[in-house]
């Protein structure tokens, strides 16, 4: 079990490093896309492993992101990733059916949530003044499609690594 947790953290760590380095070179530079690889993997941990563990991961890697790419302020990614993971984890926990496509849809919902959430968070702090409809076409939709594709590619191999479903053991929401 310990070894598995280490493995999960190591993979997310590599994804986190790749987000700011590899992606710059493998995608055309004209594309305005935000890479949420770390977040997608953390959502998978929330869906297939344990949601509290996932929230802890989201806080850790979110804060690392904030510190590493410090531009305007600290805390935006920590907040967005933790909240997104919390809601998706909570929603997945509500119904104990697990099949592949439902979890995929939940992940896409999580990605849509974080992109829109970040847009409004930065708008709240007046970092940008972009109209929402423009941002949907140019930033949000491409980002969601791209990250959903990434999720589709990574889903099966990463799920196999995470092992059998364990979530329903704790159902504390009642």
């Amino acid at each position, binding site marked *: 079990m310990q070894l598995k947790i280490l493995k999960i953290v190591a993979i997310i760590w590599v994804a986190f490093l790749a987000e700011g*380095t590899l992606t*710059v070179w*493998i995608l055309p530079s004209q594309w305005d896309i935000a890479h*949420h690889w770390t977040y997608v993997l953390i959502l998978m941990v929330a869906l297939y492993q344990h949601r509290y563990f996932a929230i802890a991961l989201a806080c850790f890697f979110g804060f690392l992101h904030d*510190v590493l*790419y410090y*531009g*305007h302020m600290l805390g935006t990614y920590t907040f967005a990733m933790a909240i997104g993971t919390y809601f998706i984890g909570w929603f997945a926990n509500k119904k104990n059916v697990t099949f592949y496509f439902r979890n995929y849809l939940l992940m896409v919902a999580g990605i849509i949530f974080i992109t829109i959430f970040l847009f409004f968070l930065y708008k709240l702090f007046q970092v940008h003044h*972009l109209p929402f409809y423009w941002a949907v076409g140019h930033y949000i939709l491409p980002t969601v499609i791209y990250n959903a594709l990434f999720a589709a590619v990574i889903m099966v191999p990463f799920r196999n690594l995470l092992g059998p479903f364990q979530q329903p053991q704790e159902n504390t929401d009642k």
Partner: protein
Amino acid sequence: MFKIFGDKRLFLLLLCLIIFISIMGITYIKREEVTWPEKISDDTTSWFQQLMYKPASMIAGFFGNINDVSTVYEENQALKQTLSFYALDRARLNSLEKENERLKEMLQFTQLQKEQNNYTYRIAQVVAVSPDLYNKTIKINLGSENGIKENMAVATEDGLIGRVNRVTPFYAHVEMVTNLSETALDSILIHAAVSSSEEFETYGTITSFDPIEERLLMTKIDPNDPIAEGDLIVTSGLGGVFPKDIIIGTVDKVEVGEFGLTNVAYIKASADFKQLHEVFVIEVPE
């Protein structure tokens, strides 16, 4: 009925909300010092990022080179032509420089005044690029150990790309000019001027970047000052942060500003902000 939050849970969630909003608010204003946990986590992670960025850029660069082979002949011709112009200019520059030096000597300039425009360009490798759309920063592999300080200007060979906004011992964060916003509290405005004007000097301030048009906005230009499409815009050195004569871009169009009192120019930045290999940190002698 769904019960989203238990009582305790709701309380915790609201507490988190308050804490996070206040963290963001506090760190949004200019911060004095980089704390040591930040330094440690930043430096160690940056070291790993460096391991990934360099090979990736080299492989991408290799394929880029193959692409370039087809255009190399035409490029060579164009370069030869510019080189001959350059040689002519160089001769003129040499004599002017000598004359300038002689005049400065006659006017008894102090050592500091003489070296004021003698910038050192420190080359730095890019380590990582922010994957965030609203917060464009890059990281370079020079830090406070190498004498890098906050607010130093950073440029590529084409022009200005940003300023150093945070320094850890071995790495530094560069905030790109595309991050500029009029209302963002942490923006430092760039005082700019038209470089080609002979008698008049046209001044203005670069206040924000418009992602929709992909242009920098230069505001507060006097309507009587000459400025036209295609003019070269450089830093004026008056703002106190950016040194003089760093190329920013060319004027794309000029419009009357918001209140009709001043003009606004849209500037196409000369530097490419994406896929950066190496950048220069500009050190001003003190």
